[in-house]
């Protein structure tokens, strides 16, 4: 299904993208499965998977949250600069 992926901070560096339209497999039905798929598509993202959060349509969600076609999914690692 088609979704929009937004990448922030280190995720932007790891994937080389700020925003992409992505075709994700129909087997990816929730955020947990999305994280696994992201690690496969973008290996440089793997070290960040444990700490980053996903926001679906401008709301932070957990691994069990479902994903639908047309969702805007933001990949948000924490940053600490001050």
């Amino acid at each position, binding site marked *: 299904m088609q979704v929009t992926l937004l990448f922030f901070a280190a995720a932007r560096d790891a994937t080389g993208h700020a925003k992409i339209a992505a075709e994700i497999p129909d087997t990816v039905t929730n955020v947990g499965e999305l994280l696994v798929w992201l690690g496969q598509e973008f290996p440089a993202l793997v070290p960040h998977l444990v700490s980053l959060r996903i926001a679906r349509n401008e709301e932070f969600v957990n691994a069990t949250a479902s994903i639908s076609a047309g969702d805007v999914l933001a990949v948000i690692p924490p*940053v600490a600069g*001050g």
Partner: protein
Amino acid sequence: MREDFELQLGHIPGAIHLALSELEPRARAVLPSEQARIVVYCARGVRSAKAAKLLQRLGYHQVSQLEGGFFRWKSLGLPIEPPAAASQVTSNSERYSRQLLLTEVGSTGQQKLAQARVLLIGVGGLGSPAALYLAGAGIGTLGLVDADVVELSNLHRQIMHDTSRIDTKKVDSAKARIEAANPNVELELYAERFCPESADRILERGWDAVIDGADNFPTRYTLNDVASRRGIPVCHGSIDRFEGRVTTFLGNRGPCYRCLFPQPPLPGTVGSCAERGVLGVLPGVIGTLQATEALKLVLGIGQPLSGRLLTYDALELRFAEMRYGSDPDCPSCQARVDRS
């Protein structure tokens, strides 16, 4: 209705101060409701009589005068607010005049600012603009926590400091600058790291808000855990290259930093400003937003960014907002003292 210099004798607790000459131009700002029940007083009753007539002409119909004025009140042994609090605010009526004009601030708000205590973790990129604006606004006490000395590479973004302060402790550099900006501000300096060993000692002194201007994850998580336990709000800001984030953790309710990011990054996976670089103006934007949140909390106005993460992309010049909720399994929230 007395003049500034008369307030040295004290004032009636809770009273709003306006000199008679200021009454007509400022009445609407400090007395928004014509239905309000107003009692006017002056030293003995002459000016309050004039003020009462003026207020009635302005449309206030529930006005009475305190018979015999402040001196009669005092002679009856009725409570008086000591002069220090009053004169500090009113002798600064010129300094704060532009914000006193805001009905959401006014003299009542200015007194809240004067009584407030705000702690800043870090007087670096984020802490610099935050501290300067909080000092300018008249926050009564600012606590500054920073173990570092000023370095040349700080100066492109840490606007509190300048070339003459290189190799000076950041808290001392900030003290000099803040005292020049607003000598009314009391300062508590902590030239040390905010860490598990110092956090409780520093936070137990009591703060109305904390500005999180730390530059590393361990400090941010320590701050979150100890502040949550004590119910102290944290105005969070964080930056990386061209991106910034702002949110507010209310402390005694709502989600905290661990609700948002339960798992710190693996060591070595997220670089610092020294390693990744940062646009100098970026912490200026984010730190100023943190100060805005702190002022709103102190004044009790507007809506804080609780449960909302504001993200900023300087390259696109775009702000976005994402909602987040409390994690029912959050260990920091569970450790909160029940304040209900």
